[in-house]
């Protein structure tokens, strides 16, 4: 083959290079398209010794639209089964309780912490968030979320605005959220401080049903939460960044746990009956959080501290740290330590005395009592080809409830009223 003239060669070369450039541009475009999507997925098992077991699956998808906009969507599905402490105290005798629905009973053996073993639920939660960069120094975001479980429905809106200063070294964020929850307890809402009706105390099923119905109110209850947070992030050096947050949360509505009870005991510590608990219908919480994070040559480390206080007088301190070490460019190990300590809400009572007048509010839920807890965790992560990452996490969590200073009477001195709760958590995550 003979070329007709040099100009044809130039044309052919130009055409060929165009085709090459075009092709590489296409490759680049499709890579960018893939890069616009980020998917994180995880499945977690949480299991307490003899108590609650949960499996939770979580998926998060991020999609960037240019440099300015980011859509973030999350879906969580979890399933819970097992038993949870009802609030009643352990006794030297067998105890009989009515199930929350009023249908049927369950018994607790002598010396055992009463656990309500009917607890099971499935929850689905979805959320979407849109973040928009308005200018080099202003950013904003808005989001919605909703969740549904058997006896609970929640809907929320949130928004935030962010301003950066000082060559992007200082960032201020103001955010707020409003959440509306509806509670529809199994068997109806218990009348505050009404006595649990137990089938054995009645001659006929009908008499029992009438008594049980007197402890219940039909219909749903709701709860409104308003959250506000002010956050400042500051770059301290080439490797360290610091964040401080102040959070304010105002909750109003139904905060009583419809499934929790209190034992009413005589001066020998023997249970005379069980009352449904009652909590205040408003709560104002403040939290102060600070965190520092550092980039190490072969890892990352962070330390954080949170102080939380509220008008229930429930104060808490939380210390937490994560330390990650890269064994190689592709493989890392990470240690997680957390210590938490809380002081009981002012209406927390491990039990009530039968001969004393009822307080305005009371709950024996150990989760609002004096308590400390700690977490020890290990995680391993592996970077795979194509930017994928797989990680495994195993954690041990132990709660140590404590007496809030209540004098234990009679047989209660022989019972373990504040048993430790031990749990493990295992998680597998995949990102691509």
């Amino acid at each position, binding site marked *: 083959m003979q070329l007709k003239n040099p100009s044809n060669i130039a044309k052919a070369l130009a055409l060929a290079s165009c085709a090459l450039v075009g092709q590489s541009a296409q490759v680049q475009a499709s890579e960018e398209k893939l890069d616009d999507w980020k998917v994180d997925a995880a499945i977690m098992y949480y299991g307490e010794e003899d108590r609650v077991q949960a499996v*939770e699956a979580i998926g998060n998808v991020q999609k960037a639209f240019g440099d300015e906009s980011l859509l973030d969507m999350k879906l969580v599905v979890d399933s819970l089964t097992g038993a949870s402490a009802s609030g009643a105290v352990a006794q030297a005798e067998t105890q009989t309780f009515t199930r929350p629905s009023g249908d049927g009973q369950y018994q607790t053996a002598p010396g055992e912490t009463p656990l309500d073993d009917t607890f099971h639920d499935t929850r689905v939660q979805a959320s979407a968030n849109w973040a928009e960069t308005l200018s080099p120094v202003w950013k904003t975001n808005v989001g919605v*979320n909703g969740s549904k479980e058997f006896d609970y429905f929640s809907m929320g809106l949130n928004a935030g605005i962010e301003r950066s200063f000082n060559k992007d070294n200082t960032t201020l964020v103001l955010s707020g*959220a409003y959440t509306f929850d509806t509670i529809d307890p199994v068997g109806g809402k218990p009348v505050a401080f009404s006595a649990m009706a137990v089938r054995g105390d009645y001659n006929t099923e009908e008499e029992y049903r009438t008594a049980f119905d007197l402890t219940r109110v039909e219909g749903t209850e709701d709860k409104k*939460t308003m959250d506000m947070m002010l956050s400042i992030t500051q770059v301290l050096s080439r490797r360290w*960044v610091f964040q401080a*947050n102040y959070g304010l949360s105002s909750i109003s509505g139904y905060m009583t746990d419809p499934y929790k009870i209190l034992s009413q005991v005589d001066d020998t510590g023997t249970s005379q009956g069980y009352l449904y608990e009652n909590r205040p219908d408003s709560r104002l*919480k403040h939290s102060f959080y600070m*965190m520092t994070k550092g980039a190490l040559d072969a890892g*990352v480390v962070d330390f954080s501290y949170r102080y939380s206080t509220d008008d229930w007088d429930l104060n808490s301190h939380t210390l937490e740290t994560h330390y990650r070490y890269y064994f190689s460019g592709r493989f890392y190990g990470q240690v997680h330590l957390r210590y938490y300590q809380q002081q009981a809400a002012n209406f927390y009572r491990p039990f009530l005395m039968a001969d004393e007048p009822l307080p305005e509010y009371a709950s024996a839920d150990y989760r609002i009592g004096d*308590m400390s807890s700690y977490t020890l965790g290990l995680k391993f992560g592996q970077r795979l080809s194509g930017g994928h990452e797989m990680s495994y996490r195993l954690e041990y969590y132990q709660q140590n409830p404590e007496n809030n200073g209540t004098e234990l009477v009679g047989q209660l001195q022989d019972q373990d009223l504040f048993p430790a709760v031990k749990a493990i958590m295992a998680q597998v995550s995949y990102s691509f």
Partner: protein
Amino acid sequence: MNRTIIAIAIAISLSACSSLGVEPWEKNQLARADMALDSEKLDLALDDHIYFSKEGSSGGRSLAGGGCGCN
């Protein structure tokens, strides 16, 4: 008196922020993916859910929200 001291301390610490920090070309370490404050987003979300349902206080790192009948 105490409040004035706190206000002055906050004002000084905020103005000190304007001199803290690094130049944009010195941010290579801070720009690492593992240095993002939410680099382990799912772990943090799962942890928050556990502690929210098992302890008396929640939130701090981000908005506390709610959305479950577990507490």
